[in-house]
């Protein structure tokens, strides 16, 4: 986890940066004049925590989207490292190649083997390119499916980490059937016989997210978003301009709070004050306990019951109006 001065600050986080700078100044003064400034420094450090809270309490939906993309935010591999042991990464879809934007493998959660799968973003410019910014190609979704089937065969629960700005919209992706790959995953995940837990840890953009996002329980971390399209693309299509992303973010109701309120996700996972990027250990510990609790509950159900409940859950999603049945409704 980057520490100041290597930390990156978003626009609305600038007041925190200012406080850090003040601390630095105090430290330098203390050094020079040999005066004990620890009280003042402590006060400023408390102020930083206060400020972090104040900022995250008052975020607009668009700022929440920005926070979900924070460059210091932990990504899938980080959570795997902190939550699980004995992770063995497995590669390839057995057809085309290994997609670096989608990772997965066996790991243990408190000694019990599970399959973990997730989109992976890069932590620096080079890695971001390697990971294709977390945008998987069809072979990524097919790798994920191969691993899910492997888990099913050996009766291991599946835990997925969703963090993608969308499935990759490329020429080769279309040639290899991006739509089909996502569709197949959704279809197979609906009927997977093992417990499936989904965690949205960053961006949950549309079909690209749902391609590894169908399960018994969907957990959404506090500062993430999940909806049918990114606010930028929504703005470009519906408003015919890239400038309405803030409004689009509001209209789409894409925050964890909204999604939980709508009953489209099952639980909000709290993050450390100010966001997961302030404390990877704490963020992981909170998430770990949520996963453990849900997994314990899911394991008590038998496989068929679980699949029935899963399908029922998704079938209830949607709002429509039903007019009085007329003659043509003679079913």
């Amino acid at each position, binding site marked *: 986890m980057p520490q100041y001065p290597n930390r990156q600050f978003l626009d609305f986080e600038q007041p925190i940066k200012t406080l850090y700078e003040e601390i630095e100044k105090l430290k330098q003064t203390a050094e020079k004049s040999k005066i004990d400034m620890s009280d003042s420094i402590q006060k400023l450090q408390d102020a930083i925590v206060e400020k972090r809270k104040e900022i995250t309490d008052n975020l607009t939906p668009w700022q929440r989207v920005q926070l979900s993309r924070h460059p210091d935010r932990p990504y899938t591999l980080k959570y795997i490292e902190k939550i699980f042991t004995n992770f063995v990464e497995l590669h390839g879809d057995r057809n085309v190649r290994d997609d670096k934007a989608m990772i997965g493998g066996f790991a243990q959660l408190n000694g019990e083997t599970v399959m973990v799968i997730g989109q992976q973003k890069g932590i620096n410019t080079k890695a971001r390119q390697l990971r294709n910014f977390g945008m998987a190609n069809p072979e990524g979704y097919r790798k994920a499916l191969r691993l899910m089937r492997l888990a099913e065969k050996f009766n291991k629960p599946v835990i997925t980490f969703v963090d993608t700005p969308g499935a990759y919209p490329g020429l080769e992706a279309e040639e290899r059937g991006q739509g089909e790959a996502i569709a197949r995953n959704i279809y197979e995940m609906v009927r997977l016989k093992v417990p499936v837990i989904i965690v949205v840890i960053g961006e949950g953009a549309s079909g690209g997210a749902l391609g590894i996002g169908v399960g018994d329980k969907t957990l959404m971390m506090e500062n993430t978003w999940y909806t049918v399209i990114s606010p930028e693309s929504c703005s470009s299509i519906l408003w015919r301009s890239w400038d309405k992303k803030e409004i689009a973010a509001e209209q789409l109701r894409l925050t964890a709070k909204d999604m939980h309120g709508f009953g*489209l996700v099952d639980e909000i996972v709290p993050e450390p004050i100010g966001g997961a990027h302030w404390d990877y250990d704490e963020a992981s510990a909170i998430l770990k306990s949520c996963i453990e609790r849900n997994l314990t509950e899911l394991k008590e159900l038998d496989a068929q019951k679980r699949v029935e409940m899963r399908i029922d859950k998704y079938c209830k999603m949607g709002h429509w109006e039903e007019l009085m049945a007329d003659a043509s409704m003679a079913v």
Partner: protein
Amino acid sequence: MKKEREEDFENNLTGEEDNHQEENSKRSWFKRRKKGILTSTADKKETPEGLWNKCPNCNHITTTKELKEELFVCVKCNYHHRIGSEEYYEIIFDNSEYTELFDNIRSIDFLHFTDLKPYQKRLDEIHSKTDLKDSMRVAVGEINGEKMVVACMDFEFIGGSLGSVMGEKFSRAVDYCIEHKLPYLVISKSGGARMMESAFSLMQLAKTSGKLSQLSDAKLPYISMLTDPTFGGISASFGMLGDLNIAEPGALIGFAGPRVIKETIKKDLPEGFQRSEFLLEHGFLDFIVDRKQLKDKLHQLILLFRN
């Protein structure tokens, strides 16, 4: 011409009206200003001679009446004009007779979504302008004497977008198939998920896939027919999940739209990219079927699945 069609495609996706009407009317009075079939069937029968139609592909000019007799396929270049559910039902069902199911389900603006205009206003406008109630209709009828449930999209209703209503109608159609042991055909023509229903529309991908899982367990055939255009959430769910995936010739089918891909890769797209023939070549379709053979082909398939 291609560019105009792309623009028109996007207009339809967002439910926008063509706003270059004046310009166009000056340019040519042959030009179809509005795509799709806007008049109700009843009106269409009284279409007076002399109403012309120009093929967007080869510019062949024909009367609307002749075009209808040719099942909206250009006699010169075999271009398949975009048609709506009513036209498909008339083409495939015996004597054009069918029973519409679940037509009492209506979209609501649950989120009070407002872009350039409120979602509710969009719905009201389309309801007042057309006979359509939503972007998908479900019907049961006979195809050469064989019963089949056919769900069909209407592109002119907010770009045939997938929202809660389509998801629910799709689900009930599956239940109906299971209850009556009938095969299921879905004719897709859609820009994808309906953004105005936000995540609710996204979840319809999971909902419809779950229902297909039940249809599959009941061992009933599901045929997915893709027509021009089929994109996004449809191709990323039930559109690509048919026991058989079939398509009309020349239909534009894909996950991401051509414009988005072009912007991403910053290169021109190859000729024929994302057309039915391209998908067939890459292994995602079982076959391409001409509209004029559709009915007999469906009948043949029903018998092959059953006997």
